[in-house]
């Protein structure tokens, strides 16, 4: 906490603290831009959280924000620095998707989310590192090098939005944007000790976001506390005529729940999911959190059942690669992206381009998806998975008729060593066990810090009802008012 309130002492503040300091004239968005730019550039030597940094346009945005503050504008996030996952198109700034395929790709339009950030006065400090095309849980599959966990540089930050989580954890920027197809916001948030939210499918526009699995992908915020998260979600949520799957559901005030507390809130624990494969220390922190809620008046129900939840893993690893294999067909070495250029004919150029520019996990998933969708296998795999998806969704709906939110640990373990799971895809996939179901059924879910084990953060996941983000952020706000797990920062700041 900066008592003196200077840009040097307060550089690692939350967005709300920066906003207050702007208004008390302690420093301007332009001052902050210079300092944050220097800090994240220097941190990148250890963390590798960014693929590219702010350009001239970002400096202009900061100067413009300084004028807006000076003229008395009230927007909560005017002049606040933010990092954006390098999966969202930024006009005139390279967007790589973490792949060699898009190494030189220069979008001509902003994604809707980026446009909204700019309109709200946020200053985009850079594009964050990720697993190639958002496929991975450890950030080991980026073509631009591994992101390191700021709590222990020998460990993974999680993935795929590892860079977005790591820079917020290291207090480089107070806010960032990620995407979550099977846990890619919540899992790195948990492993890096920050907050992350996957909104309800359709809550946020996907226009201009490099597509991975279109029925599962959703853009969402990272922050250090519930207050900042509410402000950021407020900016990016809402229907977009450029994305016909974005919802017309009205956007509420995401802080309207902040005085609700836990009294009478019904919390469900799917006990069957916690029986095996979860670290004792993770379970211990999870139980502590449950006691905290109980002490604050929540009603705990340990008997809710989602009998088919274990099928979520195979369902996900069929549906996501199937959709990915179709989405990634567009990278043909012709219109944009990497091209091998040489070959006897167009088809050879296409195969060579894809063979040379896609990394191992992307190839693996394209192969899984193509095989699952190929003649003779469609009914046995893809169609079966879509039916099981319906079953899981019905079970979730039944459970959420009895309780207000479902709690699980966000991940079965804390951050693992770089290289320890890279050779075993199944073990890597198991890391997403708790996060995948929310994508499969389209429900909102967030992760908030709930403890530490050997100096590594542990995350608590709350799954909510469709379009119930305000409730989830309200629960997190109440939890953060009663605990201080979200206030710790790593030494590798």
């Amino acid at each position, binding site marked *: 906490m900066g008592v003196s309130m200077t840009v040097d002492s307060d550089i690692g503040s939350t967005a709300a603290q920066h906003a207050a300091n702007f208004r008390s004239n302690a420093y301007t968005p332009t001052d902050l831009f210079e300092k944050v730019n220097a800090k994240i550039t220097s941190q990148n030597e250890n963390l590798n959280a960014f693929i590219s940094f702010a350009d001239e346009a970002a400096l202009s945005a900061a100067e413009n924000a300084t004028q807006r503050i000076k003229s008395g504008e009230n927007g909560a996030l005017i002049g606040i620095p933010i990092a954006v996952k390098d999966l969202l198109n930024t006009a005139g700034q390279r967007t790589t998707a973490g792949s060699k395929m898009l190494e030189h790709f220069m979008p001509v339009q902003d994604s809707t989310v980026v446009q909204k950030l700019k309109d709200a006065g946020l200053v985009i400090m850079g594009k964050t590192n990720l697993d190639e095309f958002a496929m991975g849980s450890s950030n080991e599959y980026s073509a631009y090098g591994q992101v390191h966990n700021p709590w222990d540089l020998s460990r993974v930050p999680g993935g795929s939005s590892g860079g977005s989580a790591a820079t917020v954890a290291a207090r480089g920027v107070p806010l960032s944007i990620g995407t979550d197809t099977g846990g890619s916001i919540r899992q790195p948030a948990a492993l890096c000790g920050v907050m992350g939210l996957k909104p309800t499918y359709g809550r946020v526009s996907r226009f201009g976001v490099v597509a991975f699995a279109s029925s599962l992908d959703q853009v969402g915020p990272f922050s250090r506390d519930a207050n900042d998260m509410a402000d950021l979600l407020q900016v990016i949520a809402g229907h977009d005529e450029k994305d016909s799957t974005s919802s017309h559901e009205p956007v509420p005030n995401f802080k309207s729940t902040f005085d609700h507390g836990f009294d009478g809130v019904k919390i469900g624990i799917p006990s069957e999911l916690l029986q095996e494969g979860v670290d004792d220390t993770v379970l211990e922190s999870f139980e502590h959190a449950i006691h905290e809620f109980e002490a604050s008046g929540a009603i705990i129900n340990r008997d809710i059942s989602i009998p088919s939840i274990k099928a979520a893993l195979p369902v996900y690893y069929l549906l996501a690669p199937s959709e990915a294999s179709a989405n990634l067909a567009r990278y043909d070495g012709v*219109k944009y992206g990497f091209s091998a250029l040489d070959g006897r004919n167009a088809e050879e150029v296409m195969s060579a381009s894809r063979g040379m520019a896609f990394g191992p996990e992307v190839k693996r998933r394209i192969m899984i998806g193509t095989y699952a969708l190929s003649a003779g296998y469609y009914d046995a795999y893809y169609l079966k998975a879509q039916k099981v998806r319906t079953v899981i969704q019905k079970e979730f709906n039944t459970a959420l008729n009895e309780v207000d939110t479902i709690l699980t640990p966000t991940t079965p373990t804390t951050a693992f060593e770089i290289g320890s799971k890279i050779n075993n895809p199944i073990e890597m996939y198991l890391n997403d066990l708790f996060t995948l179901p929310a994508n499969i059924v389209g429900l909102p879910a967030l992760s908030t810090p709930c403890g530490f084990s050997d100096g590594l953060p542990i995350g608590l996941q709350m799954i909510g009802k469709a379009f119930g983000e305000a409730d989830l952020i309200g629960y997190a706000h109440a939890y953060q008012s009663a605990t201080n797990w979200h206030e710790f920062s790593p030494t590798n700041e």
Partner: protein
Amino acid sequence: MEISKEDVIHVAALARVQLSDAEAIKLQEDLSLIFGHFESLNEVDTAEVNPTLHVSGEQIILAREDLEESHQNLRKDQIQRPLSPNQVLHNAPRIEDGFIRIKGVLD
């Protein structure tokens, strides 16, 4: 579940992904293992279940005159300014005289 190397080569050809020999061998192992795990889906009874078509059950409503604008998922059918040819070609690997140049489609 056993997936053969020929299967892998066939699927790679369908997906237009050139693989090295080492990659094909590794993918044969991985896919056999991964598709083996998919067998567990058969434990869920889906005899009377419809497949999920859209996760929120929301209909994609096309522009229709009898519906309020706020419920339509497609924008109004109005002419908008398209991207310029320069913007469209900006990222193409090889262009010539305002066209994208590619290798022959037929041998």
